[in-house]
């Protein structure tokens, strides 16, 4: 299915159906990586994804799933996990990018420690919070200014490709020895 065909198909779907389909793709992508540690921070748009790992099929023996109080704390924990040879993935929302930049640019990036962050988009079409766009719509600019490599998954990429793209982002982070962010729009745009 092409991106245009997929978008057309999504046109007939409710927001909830789009959320479910895209969330399933994100789950599949993260599961393909087979992380042994999943660090997350609460997000209403990520609730399906997080539920899978917190108390769903993704909460399996041998995998630690836990909340990070702040994104920067998660970056540092992931750095330690990476040094130890573990396979951590971070999942959070784009309005937390500002919180983590110092840790990312003084630890993961200069120490050449790979890190995969799956980051949900907010603040676009379909947004229900009147102010979150003030930071969320600047997510790409913030990451660009910080020199952090990111990829975007939204309506322009067929949902059927999302899982593979997330898995490739994991490999890319390790191949290039640096953090890589995958920005996922689960809200329909």
């Amino acid at each position, binding site marked *: 299915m092409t991106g245009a065909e997929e978008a057309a198909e999504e046109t007939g779907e409710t927001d909830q159906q789009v959320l479910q389909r895209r969330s399933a793709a994100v789950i599949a992508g993260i599961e393909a990586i087979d992380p042994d540690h999943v660090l997350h921070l609460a997000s209403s748009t990520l609730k399906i994804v997080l539920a899978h790992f917190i108390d769903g099929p993704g909460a399996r023996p041998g995998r630690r799933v836990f*909340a990070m109080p702040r994104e920067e*704390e998660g970056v540092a924990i992931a750095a330690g996990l990476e*040094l130890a040879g573990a396979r951590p993935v971070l999942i959070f929302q784009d309005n937390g990018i500002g919180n983590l930049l110092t840790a990312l640019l003084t630890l993961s990036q*200069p120490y050449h420690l790979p890190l995969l962050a799956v980051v949900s988009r907010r603040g676009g079409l379909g947004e229900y919070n009147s102010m979150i766009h003030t930071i969320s719509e600047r997510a790409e600019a913030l990451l660009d200014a910080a020199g952090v490599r990111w990829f975007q998954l939204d309506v322009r990429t067929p949902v059927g490709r999302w899982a593979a793209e997330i898995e490739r982002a994991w490999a890319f982070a390790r191949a290039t020895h640096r953090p890589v962010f995958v920005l996922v729009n689960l809200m329909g745009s």
Partner: protein
Amino acid sequence: MADLDRADVLRVIDAAAPDSPVVLSLGGIAREMLAVAGRKGNQFVSLDAMGQTVSLALGLALGLDGRAPAGKVIAIEGDGSLLMGLSVLSTVGHLKPDRLVVFVLDNGVYLATGGQPTASADIDFAAVALACGWRGARDVRTADELTAATAWALTTEGPVLVRVRISTAQLPAGYFLEDPAILAEDFRRWLRTH
């Protein structure tokens, strides 16, 4: 006034745990450990990332769970840096990594930047850690207490925290300007071979 100088505390910890993975907080802790112990493969030097020393050590302790090298994973943190990332005490208390030992070297000031006061004088770090679910915590003011607390921390199921009240005396130590990518690779190499 505290009896203990930072350099003396660092010597005690290094002598007690020469083969444990150690994460050194930025600034004086890292520089003075390098001055008293030399550059060692088991020590990961944080050149900046203030507030993240314990988080980094937590990740190490989780990642090394059930794997070599055996023994404790140690973080040596300052009071100012810990206060910048105090939420990690709750994460550690929740996850309870049994290998994690955290030494908080508390001089009450941001010494590397001119001695501006921190809020530590009004904070009972040991009580906070215990309230967060840590398995043990002690407060240390003398050399004898430090020796006893270090032996206890290295033989007790973690996570445990040892707060060490130290003076503001500084050991002359130059800047450490190594490439962080080399520091990380050296530390990984040490982990792979121990």
